[in-house]
């Protein structure tokens, strides 16, 4: 089903893109409703609340979940579930946030909401001990393994400098809506991990990235045509030491923040600032900005800052 379905969808999507390129201006003139997802803000940052509440506020100011998820659509939510650790250690995305997102998707009329990650530690233990499996099931979402190679299909990244192709999980390729939900944390290889780095969890062969040029590959993959519809960066608990897995709760501070944006690079830039690092000092953010995968210049964006 999947490959064929994928091709069919990509052809339709391609045609639609072509059409919008040709008739774009007319469409704008004739449109009754704003194009999908275009809220009044490019980026929303929230501070001082619980994970679920912060997401509610953020998505509300982006025009509500209906702006991103239409009735009957399938949604894939991709949190970071990489490690076999408890939620308090913040190596994985906060389960309460994931739960709230799944609930919001269903409220907006989603048909199915899938959640997966290509984990580093044993996936069953990660899913269970991160608390995410239970959170998703409580919200009637569907948990799928990301650790089966059969689910991954070859894609091309023509604009990539060092990463020209990758195998991507079919849920990402086939779903109508793709919500990227990383957790902000220190990372021994990439300095900080956020939206762009989190996408390593939708590809199969990550060793190639490490072997070739980690930062360049992360930036290259940000050019992959199926970009996240929305990025939600969880900075409720933030691991500041010994990341990405951490060793104990002592590695974690409470930041109680959240950032959402359609632009991965902008979201990562804002999260880096939140953490206290200038975005341009993180190599992959700079590279992604240069290749126009997004912008790290926050001054050019309309940002809504919400304090709870």
């Amino acid at each position, binding site marked *: 089903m999947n490959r064929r379905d994928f091709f069919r969808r990509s052809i339709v999507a391609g045609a639609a893109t072509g059409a919008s390129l040709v008739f774009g201006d007319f469409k704008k003139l004739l449109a009754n409703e704003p194009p999908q997802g275009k809220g009044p803000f490019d980026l929303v*940052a929230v501070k001082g609340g619980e994970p679920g509440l912060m997401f509610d506020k953020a998505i509300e100011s982006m025009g509500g979940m209906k702006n991103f998820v239409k009735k009957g659509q399938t949604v894939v939510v991709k949190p970071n579930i990489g490690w076999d650790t408890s939620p308090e250690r913040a190596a994985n995305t906060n389960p309460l946030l994931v739960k709230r997102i799944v609930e919001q998707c269903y409220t907006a009329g989603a048909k199915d909401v899938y959640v997966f990650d290509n984990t580093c530690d044993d996936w069953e233990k990660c899913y269970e001990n991160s608390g995410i499996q239970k959170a998703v099931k409580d919200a009637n979402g569907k948990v799928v393994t990301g650790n089966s190679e059969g689910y991954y299909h070859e894609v091309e990244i023509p604009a990539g400098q060092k990463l020209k192709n990758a195998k991507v999980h079919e849920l990402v390729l086939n779903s109508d809506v793709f919500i990227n939900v990383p957790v902000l944390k220190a990372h021994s290889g990439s300095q900080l991990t956020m939206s762009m780095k989190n996408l390593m969890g939708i590809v199969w062969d990550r060793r190639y990235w490490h072997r070739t040029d980690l930062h360049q590959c992360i930036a290259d993959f940000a050019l992959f045509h199926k970009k996240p519809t929305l990025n939600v960066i969880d900075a409720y608990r933030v691991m500041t*030491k010994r990341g990405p897995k951490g060793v104990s709760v002592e590695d974690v501070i409470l930041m109680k923040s959240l950032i959402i944006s359609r632009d991965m690079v902008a979201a990562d830039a804002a999260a880096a600032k939140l953490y206290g690092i200038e975005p341009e000092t993180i190599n992959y953010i700079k590279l992604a900005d240069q290749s126009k995968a997004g912008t790290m210049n926050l001054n050019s964006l309309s940002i809504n800052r919400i304090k709870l």
Partner: protein
Amino acid sequence: MRQKFLKKIRVIISLVVFLFTIFIFIDFAHLFSSKVIHAILFLQFVPSLLDFVNVLTFAATGFIFISLITLLFGRVYCSFLCPLGVFQDIFIGISSRIRKFKKGRRWKYTSSRHILQYSILAASLVLLFLFRSLVFVNLLDPYSISGKMFTNLFRPVYYMANNLMADVFKAFHSYALYPIALKHISWPAVIFSGMLFITFMLLSVFRTRWYCNAICPVGTTLGLLSRVSLFKLRIDEASCNACGACERKCKAGCIDYRRNKIDFDRCVACFNCIPACPSGGVGYHLSLKKENTPVTESGKSRRNFLKTSVTGVAGLGTVLSVKKIFAANEKTSSTSVSPVTPPGSVSIWHFRETCTACHLCINACPTKVLQPAFLEYGLSGLFQPRLDYHTEYCNFECIRCSEVCPTGAIFPVTKEEKSTIQIGISKFIKNLCVVVANHTACAACSEHCPTKAVEMVPYLGDLKIPQIDEKICVGCGACEFACPVRPERSIYVEAHNYHHTAMKPLKKVEGEKKEKEVKPADDFPF
């Protein structure tokens, strides 16, 4: 006699035990807790005996129970509980049913093979006690043979069946079933298990329970006990009409109807003879007085044979245990000199001397880092499991193998204990590292390290390379698994022959390390 029900009971119990035993060797969903697994294996003779000797636990008294049962009713283990016995019975049953259509399947009395079986038992014991080698037990114990067949043959088939079903589900847009990856196929173990399968299939079809009365050390041991069983199967002379039906039904070939005798030490207690007798003349009788079995003429030569074979085995043992293993001089760059043994196994010596290579832990291991070795432990440790860091790494929080091990080769450990067991130490080969060779960032090793014994330290400019704190390294192999460098990895685990104790990583944070403090700001910095 009204003992016909015994055969039916035997068939039912043996099949139930057999299916449960198979299931714990192939189940990937880990449906059974370790307690249930121990309950299923409680009565397995060799693991229970080894566990009792090693751990001195009352949880491992199954072999005493079996011995008592044998002293009462003979080798009940062999037909009720022995997985290899039931495996053979299934083929015997199928083949006799097929042949029934052509010709009557009949077996007849065979003479005993005491010399062979006692030599093998003696050899196993000599190798075990004098040379501390379990090799004969590993290769001959019926439970361990079954375990190897279940793990290396049945399990892949079960996985494949699941994966086919998962494909069918997916065709209907359902992710309810998911494919399970074997991750690694250990071909020597698969081929060896395949040979075992074929051997036992052929043996059972053409020689029925020959193995059990010629080779099997457990069968021999229980046979010795059953010589003095309180109740024995006997042909009632008064009701016998010399039809020979019992002999033709005897899988063990231990009934001689012409001489009206049953060699009870070779009887595997399948009870087929009881319903076979038309006059109900075969059944259990109290057997208090000593049987007047004629002393065979080979009595003396048997003793001589035993002597010579013990000497021979002693020589073999020396070859096996002294000459082998740690040929440290052949060390290549990123391969451990000796195999890494699981946490809880204390030392490579303890592990080699206690593990019967039943492979139960191999299926229990959630990450599948445990794989059968081939010759890594030497000939003596053929197919004993090792941690294979090219396949996976040992989950820091997991103690599953130590929970399920039925022999005490892997002692039970708590998560707390395991977190400081150092089974080896990471070694870094700097010139192979991506960062050094390509000047690009990587840190896959440090990312995966559960204790941050592998930490990134400044190298050139922004680049960082790994540095290993051996004090807090536990040897889990996450770094070796994650390292993207091929063919030789730039970081690997060198096994400890004796496991050490690692320091807790917590202490380090309070100490010398100063990292940039991140403080949550009150306002948005953008």
